């Protein structure tokens, strides 16, 4: 569930080693307040996706401190990190990663399969609610028949279905046309602001980044600029 404290990020000396002994990610420090929308930009290979993966607790061998509220993810084992993601983090990917054979609602509420029995109906209801808020009507249609923009909105609804405090989006508009990208940007930012969620999105989309509270630039795994 969304919690203001959990949405606060404190990141210090985050380092991820590469195979040749150098650091492919080396972030000295970053602080994000709950409800902030942060854009991450940089050339391909700069470490944007890697940073998001680290923030989601998905990287083994990351060193330093990565604290969401009181929880330092880097000190937790993989099971605890997975449990943290399930409860507090919503993830959105460039290529949606949906199950084509399942309906929009089944995709958006896919986490009911492993959620506590008592939480399942709430997750499903929230997923349906978000799908409708995002403009999707036919919730029982398999997503294979959806357009790219519609599919990404299903992915956004999936990320929001658990009511997470944190939204991490990796190039969410990259596969969409301009109209769909702008609409999705609006929806995503609105969802974050209305729910006091922290949104961190890696993107090349200038239009999307321009609407963020803070945009940081990565190059060769280092943060070289932060523009409010």
């Amino acid at each position, binding site marked *: 569930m969304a919690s203001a404290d959990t949405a606060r990020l404190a990141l210090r000396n985050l380092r991820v080693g590469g195979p040749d002994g150098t650091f492919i990610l080396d972030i000295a420090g970053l602080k994000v307040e709950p409800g902030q929308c942060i854009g991450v930009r940089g050339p391909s290979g700069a470490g944007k996706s890697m940073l998001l993966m680290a923030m989601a607790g998905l990287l083994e061998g990351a060193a330093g401190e990565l604290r969401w509220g009181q929880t330092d993810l880097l000190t937790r084992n993989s099971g605890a990190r997975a449990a943290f993601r399930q*409860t507090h983090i919503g993830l959105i990917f460039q290529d949606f990663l949906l199950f084509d054979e*399942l309906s929009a609602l089944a995709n958006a509420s896919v986490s009911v399969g492993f959620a506590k029995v008592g939480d399942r109906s709430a997750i499903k209801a929230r997923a349906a609610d978000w799908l409708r808020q995002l403009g999707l009507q036919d919730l029982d249609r398999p997503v294979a028949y959806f357009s790219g923009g519609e599919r990404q909105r299903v992915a956004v609804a999936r990320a929001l279905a658990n009511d997470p405090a944190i939204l991490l989006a990796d190039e969410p508009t990259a596969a969409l046309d301009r109209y769909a990208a702008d609409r999705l940007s609006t929806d995503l930012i609105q969802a974050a602001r209305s729910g006091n969620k922290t949104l961190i999105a890696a993107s090349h989309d200038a239009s999307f980044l321009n609407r963020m509270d803070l945009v940081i630039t990565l190059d060769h795994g280092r943060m070289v600029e932060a523009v409010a």
Partner: protein
Amino acid sequence: MMPGWSDLSAMWQDALICLALLGPGAVAGLVVLRGFAPWALVVAFLRRFVWTNLLFVILIAASVALGIGLVAQESALRMGGARAADKFDLLISAPGSELSVTLAAVFLQPTQLPLLDGSTFAEIAASPGVALAAPLVFGDSVGSAPIVGTTAAFVDHLAGPVAEGRVWQRAGEAIVGATVPLTLGDEFVPAHGHREAADQDAHKGAPEHRVVGRMAATGTPWDRAILLPIESVWKVHGLATGHASDRAAQMGPPFDAAFMPGVPVVVIKVASLPATYAVQSLWQLDARTIAVFPGAVLSGLYRVMGDVRVALSAISALAQGLVAVSILAGLLILLRLLRRQLALLRVLGAPARFVLSVVWSYCALLLAIGTLVGLAAGVGLAAALSVWVSGQTGVVIYATIGWSELHLTAAFLSVVAVLSLLPGWVVSRNGNVADLRS
């Protein structure tokens, strides 16, 4: 055995054994699925690879059906054989092979048998306790139907009152088995020998025989036989007819030993079981004869077949196991195509056991569907094989799926349910981020 086990009915014992065999698979399922609901994703996987899944189901079903069908058939053959021998309590013939005597008398297989002479037959018929001593002679045929010469009393013993027409009253009349393609009034001249080896002209010039009756069905090879008065068979072969010339028209016993050609087999019916053993003992010890219990001969044969059954079951189980393992290996390869979606589940926060439960459910469901379809197909296969075997042997058999086949199926289900943990375990250990980006 647990206390009270022997108090349970056989059905309850079989049912409990079935449940016990299903136990390991059920426990694996309960442990893996506890607290999870992976079914939506399993349905997605089934839809994603619908044709491949169908192929896997067919392969499993075919292996299970073949195993079940063959084992059921073997059981049915035993029962059919036992039923065919039911009317043949004791056979007496000249010394030779007990199996040959049984095959000739019970299954009407063409066999060369030494002959008993008339005086020996007379002594056998006069043995204490013998209620029926029916001589059987073989060697001729009409088309594919073997001809057996015997007595009217044997016809009644074998099949009861005739289903159609009447029993013969004079030489030249015949009774056909239930499935012989001749109708009342049809006439024929016997050929000497059987099938392709039959000499159609051997009895050329002999008087024609006319069908006057049809036996009730017995479900044995005798349904395909044509029965003549034994006197007719001897006469066709130019032999004495068992009666002195002043009684030439007599049909059936008593026979005159001086005018009786040899008989290969005598079917004996004795009033009581102890008396049957006494007669068997008497004639088994006589140097001129052997006395054969067809049931005992078949039991000996089934003991050998019992080993075959064990081997057949083992080969069948092995084949099913190999097919199951091959399919699980195939599924593992197939699941590589889903590695991004499966990694996504972990990335969304699903425990590794949830991924295991999704993969396990998918694999176990396919194998279970295949097994159950195979069970149903096995019933069909067993029925089809029964029809074919009945047509080949004349022994009517009904292969049915019994508890032993259900036990085999339950054990197989359990094994594949446990084996299905393997692909789930492999997939759940994959690297999430690497798979997500693959």
